[in-house]
């Protein structure tokens, strides 16, 4: 190889049996070949089908290229052929751990375009279920992050809580994962009898069990050693990439849609936003646990505020949105989910753009992974919370 530092742009294909391209650097008269390691797409550490190609020097990572699109299902195109009732069932599914919050965003966007008045009780019910959905989502990541680091027990405890919460949500909506409970103008049907009491009891129990995670994981010295100082994310970089949610709050930016742009009735209750200091993996996990507790506080407040009344409004036979467009952003468990809804006056949207939190969170991975070791790569991958369906839509 010559004297110049030639660096090929490595763009790996996805065909099976592809050649691994080695990148030859000419360092004076010493040629070294770095190893290219591909994590994924099927790998225990990545949540779903995400492929990260690491260029490595021994165990140190020199560069990382995430390859996404394995789960691209064309949601935005499908949404252009669905009316506003069918879209609810569609948007459940891109971030399947936060199905309710996704539907909520679309419903709010459509209601804003149509200038629909949503009854109070419907708004409070939406908030209650959205917060339970948040707890459900965060518990999942608590369990999965711990198991990636080798602690196998918190996963089972997290799922124990998740089962109870899913049972509660099933009693109201009929679904454990995909709720399809929102509709334009409110929620489909009222909460069943006894729901509020169950919800109160469950919130107390989850709060009590939250201590298990603090003791078992957050206070564990080995956990500290594995996550403190790993993958720090400065706030300016995070904002330039559009990172949101626990990842951004751990970087020290208390940017939470429920506080900065209150929707539904979040303006009337006290929303606490836990923030980190360094933006490293430890802070991200601590913020996650803090958000669970904050959501439980919110749930208790919502219990006190829940009014009586109707839960949906009369809809016209065909739900049509007037011409125009709007952009609405809600605080999903993983970050801020934005929906750009443009309508041409018909019953299907002309353009529905889903600005998903995981897409931006995954985009920042190369920045975090550069210079890290391979075991740290797993710690970082797990701490930047994302769901692959959300990344690819």
């Amino acid at each position, binding site marked *: 190889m010559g004297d110049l530092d030639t660096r090929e742009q490595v*763009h790996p*294909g*996805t*065909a099976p049996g592809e050649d691994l391209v080695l990148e030859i650097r000419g360092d004076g008269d010493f040629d070294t070949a770095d190893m290219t390691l591909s994590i994924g797409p099927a790998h225990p550490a990545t949540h779903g089908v995400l492929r990260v190609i690491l260029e490595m020097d021994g165990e140190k990572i020199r560069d990382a290229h995430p390859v*996404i*699109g394995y789960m691209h299902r*064309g949601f*935005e*195109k499908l949404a*252009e*052929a*669905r009316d506003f009732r069918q879209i609810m069932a569609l948007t459940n599914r891109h971030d399947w751990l936060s199905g309710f919050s996704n539907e909520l965003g679309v419903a709010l966007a459509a209601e*804003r375009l149509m200038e629909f008045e949503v*009854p109070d009780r419907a708004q409070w019910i939406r908030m209650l279920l959205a917060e339970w959905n948040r707890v459900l989502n965060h518990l999942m990541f608590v369990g999965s992050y711990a198991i990636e680091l080798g602690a196998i027990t918190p996963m089972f405890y997290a799922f124990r809580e998740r089962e109870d919460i899913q049972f509660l949500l099933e009693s109201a909506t009929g679904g454990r994962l995909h709720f399809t409970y929102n*509709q334009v103008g409110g929620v489909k049907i*009222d909460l*069943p*009898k006894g729901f509020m009491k169950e919800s109160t009891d469950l919130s107390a129990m989850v709060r009590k069990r939250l201590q298990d995670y603090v003791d078992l994981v957050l206070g564990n010295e080995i956990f500290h050693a594995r996550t403190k100082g790993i993958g720090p994310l400065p*706030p300016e*970089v995070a*904002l*330039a*990439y*559009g990172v949101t949610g626990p990842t951004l709050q751990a*970087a*020290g*930016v*208390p*940017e939470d849609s429920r*506080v*900065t*742009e209150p929707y539904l009735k979040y303006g009337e209750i006290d929303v606490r936003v836990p923030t980190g*200091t360094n933006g490293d993996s430890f802070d991200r996990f601590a913020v996650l646990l803090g958000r669970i507790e904050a959501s439980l506080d919110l749930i208790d407040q919502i219990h006190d505020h829940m009014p*009586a*009344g*109707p839960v*949906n*409004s*009369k*809809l016209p*036979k*065909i*739900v049509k949105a007037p011409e*125009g*467009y*709007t*952009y609405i*952003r809600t605080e999903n468990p993983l970050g801020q989910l934005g929906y*750009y809804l*443009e309508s041409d006056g018909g019953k*299907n949207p*002309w*353009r529905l*753009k889903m*600005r998903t939190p995981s*897409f*931006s969170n995954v*985009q920042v991975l190369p*920045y975090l992974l550069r210079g890290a070791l391979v075991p740290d790569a797993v710690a970082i991958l797990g701490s930047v919370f994302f769901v692959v369906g959300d990344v690819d*839509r």
Partner: protein
Amino acid sequence: MTYPVLSRAGEALTPAEQEELLRDRLGEGVLETLDANGTFTVTVAPDAWVATTRACKDEPLLAYDMFDCLFGVDRSEAGFDIVAILYSTSRGQRILLRVHCEGGRDKPVCPSLVDLYAGANWMERETWDMFGIEFEGHPGLTPRLLCAENFEGWPLRKDFYLASREAKPWPGVKEPAELDEQGNPIVKIPGPGEAVGPSILDEVMAEQAKIANPHAEVSGGPDATAPPEPAAPEPAAQTTPGPGPSEAADEPEAPDETPGVDFVTPEEREAKDADDAAIASARAELSRIQQAEAREQKAAEQAAAGSDTPTAGPAIPEGQTADLRDEGGLDERDGGDDAQAEAEGDDAGHDAEEDR
């Protein structure tokens, strides 16, 4: 150290002031602004795209430090628009920047924002992947971000049809709704942006569902008086096999559907909707009367038996669906649901527009 979120919320510029500031900086670059539906949009000329974004980012009064997203919108014959959404954490406000891409539909191009916001990288790659819009100055638009590597075509363009049944017809047994009287598959040519399969299929299937499950106990009166709808549809055009003409009360959803013909025109649809509405409201009226009678009767019985019923009361008015459900249990909710559905005959797509 906490980032100063909402630290200057009180000093946020109003949309008019922002427009003034941007026009001052960019002059002719700013084409128009729009403040509607809770969003403030500034449409700029393509050569001012980067300058406007830079102004939004760097101007101390604007301070849009967070890059939200960037995507394309298909404008049919007019070409493509790019929309970039920026957010200011210190002021708590958002701006949408819109630009119309040069090059029309054949070779749309747009300058890249990667130097200003790192997050624009993947957003522009995705927009290129979906629409085919080239971004000048982008470090590397290939390989395709979301689609498969060897994919051909730009999926989100309106002239790219959803290929649900177009690429290959369903090889299995066809459902009755997809076959016409002679047993040939119904072929429908979709309009731009329309799906081939589901939406028309839903209507036809809803039609058949209604025929198979007539609400006999309710449709006592109006049936005789209801005129059998946009009329005597030609038997050849009847997409519902079997007991079509005899169920005149259940007006067929798409009686004009002949195999291979386009959608009904909007005017015809309007007329049909109006008639549907008339029928349905008449039916709803009747059911309401019947429900009220049933309730009074039940109340009388239970008063005679001496027990309390929580749901004794007047007929439930429209729109008030939840008051009684609050007290009622699951069983009552189930029982009440049917009653409610009948009472609000034409609402929320329960009956008439079943699966539209």
